[in-house]
């Protein structure tokens, strides 16, 4: 049967026939779908732990008693939870201000480079750190900015006092933002560069003929071209407000102490994995899921009100 006839015939053929016809395709999709079902859908059953007094050593998931919202009450009474919550939001805010614009600025800068060779070279250097593991990125930062790191070492050699940025709770939020910029700002450039390369070049010429200078062309042509992408990424970022660098922060939690570094995800890890209070931790995870969903919906609504498309259409 010819490829395009499948769709056309679909309406007229029974499901048993279509199942038999497409059994190879379904068989091909099965392993991936099976893995996803097992490791992302089945765990949803374990979310019920949030409403149970679950102790894996004495009782199974099904037999452990329901406790209603007790886990949530315990969670809300824990001051560490609120500290983690506050930390998370302030880190998100710092990253929104100090990280989010960097790829846009880099993309504008790169876009103005005429030489293909230079641009290609800079791009391949920029993308590289994205492929390093967080362990590696943090060890690199430690070797550069830590107490025994290169910067402190150079300062000491020239008679200044040494310092240790890696263990200083006061600068932790900026430190992890710097790490994020180093690792991923270059990667973020890709999508903006693509948006810029899609701009019709004739627009620039027409604007120039009409007397628009470089700045006005940037303001009236380049930036509007970036608007939809910026809006989309902002909506996604706002929806992910409660997710700030789990692995990155967990790796440095011991060095700075939980006071400055605890965020939502590390709190859930600490309660659930380190202290085996599964019920409370699962409650925290559930709250995060629901909260994030609501945030995306709100952010998307705002994007619509501002005339942007957002993640999905109205």
């Amino acid at each position, binding site marked *: 049967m010819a490829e395009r006839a499948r769709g056309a015939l679909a309406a007229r053929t029974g499901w048993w026939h279509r199942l038999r016809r497409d059994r190879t395709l*379904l068989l091909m999709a099965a392993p991936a779908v099976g893995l996803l079902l097992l490791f992302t859908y089945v765990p949803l059953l374990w979310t019920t732990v949030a409403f149970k007094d679950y102790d894996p050593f004495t009782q199974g998931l099904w037999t452990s008693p329901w406790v209603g919202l007790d886990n949530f009450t315990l969670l809300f009474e824990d001051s560490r939870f609120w500290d983690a919550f506050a930390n998370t939001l302030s880190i998100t805010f710092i990253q929104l201000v100090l990280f989010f614009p960097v790829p846009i600025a880099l993309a504008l800068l790169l876009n103005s480079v005429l030489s293909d060779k230079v641009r290609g070279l800079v791009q391949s250097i920029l993308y590289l750190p994205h492929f390093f593991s967080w362990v590696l990125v943090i060890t690199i930062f430690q070797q550069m900015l830590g107490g025994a790191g290169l910067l402190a070492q150079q300062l000491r050699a020239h008679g200044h006092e040494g310092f240790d940025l890696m263990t200083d709770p006061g600068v932790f939020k900026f430190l992890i933002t710097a790490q994020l910029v180093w690792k991923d700002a270059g990667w973020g450039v890709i999508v903006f560069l693509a948006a810029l390369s899609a701009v019709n070049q004739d627009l620039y010429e027409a604007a120039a003929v009409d007397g628009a200078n470089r700045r006005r062309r940037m303001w009236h042509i380049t930036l509007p071209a970036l608007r939809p992408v910026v809006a989309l990424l902002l909506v996604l970022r706002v929806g992910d407000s409660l997710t700030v660098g789990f692995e990155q922060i967990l*790796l440095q939690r011991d060095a700075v102490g939980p006071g400055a570094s605890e965020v939502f995800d590390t709190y859930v890890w600490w309660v659930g994995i380190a202290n085996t209070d599964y019920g409370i931790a699962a409650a925290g995870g559930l709250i995060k*899921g629901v909260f994030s969903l609501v945030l995306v919906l709100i952010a998307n609504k705002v994007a619509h009100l501002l005339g942007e498309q957002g993640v999905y259409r109205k």
Partner: protein
Amino acid sequence: MTVTERTAAPAGPAAPPARRRRDERRPVWEEEPGRVGQGLKGATLAGVCLAILGPLWVVIVTSLSDQRTITDAGGLVIFPKTITFRAYTELLSGGTVTRATLVSLALTAVGTVISTVVSVLCAYGLSRPGSFLHRPILMVLLVTMFFNAGLIPTYLLVTGVGLEGSYWSMILPGAVSVFNVLVLRAFFQNIAPELIDSARIDGAGDWRILFRIVLPLSKAVIAVVSLFYAVGYWSQWFNAMLYLNDQDMWPLQMILRQLVIKQQAPQGMSQMISTQQIPGLAVQMAVMVLALIPVAVLYPFVQKHFTKGMLTGAVKG
């Protein structure tokens, strides 16, 4: 003006074929950038590149330096004086780091093959227009991109099915990335339908079409997707921390974390250094270099395909 040659270059329809590519010439209507602007732009780009490559240089050079150079420099070395591979021969002559490197390489190889094969099959299976159930299945996959159960339920499931303490706990839970499946699917759907039609008329089944027609045309995108998977497996430490209690099973990233971030010598490493002492700077840097070598080796081969692969996924997904 510093760039007079640009203005001097003839423009317009009668221009002789330029040696530079067309888009590298500044259009006539565009203002010449000022000296200060050009300088600032160059300095910024150079600074950004240096900020990325500088630390790597220092780490590599230090790992290749001998103890005297390190002591003279007071720690990390910027300008190499001697080159010695002692740290590497020490690390790779058996023992903890050798084993961890092999574990990481094997995990990456096995995981990447499993992930890539499973994803390619799934992407092709869902890419034929009008095929049975492909829309609902696609929805099932898409939902997982926006909502997942979270750390605790996943942890309870993985330990519940008995994967704890096995390398499968590092491969199976994250084996399929829906994003990668969508990238592949978008690419497969862009292959000319005539090709597939004619193969089907000639009597080829789906397996044959996939292997003989679709795969040979998709080498680039498959290379990119496998690199994404490979980097994911190579970078993993968190799953190892969660599920592998036995230090002898640890992959390289866990050793690196233990050694440099926590400044503790991992079990079994003490054999080459006096007991419980943190190994020297060159050895620490050498472990870092080991952790970045595979990425640096694979990267140049795949780098040129990134943008295309990334954007097909982002736009068409």
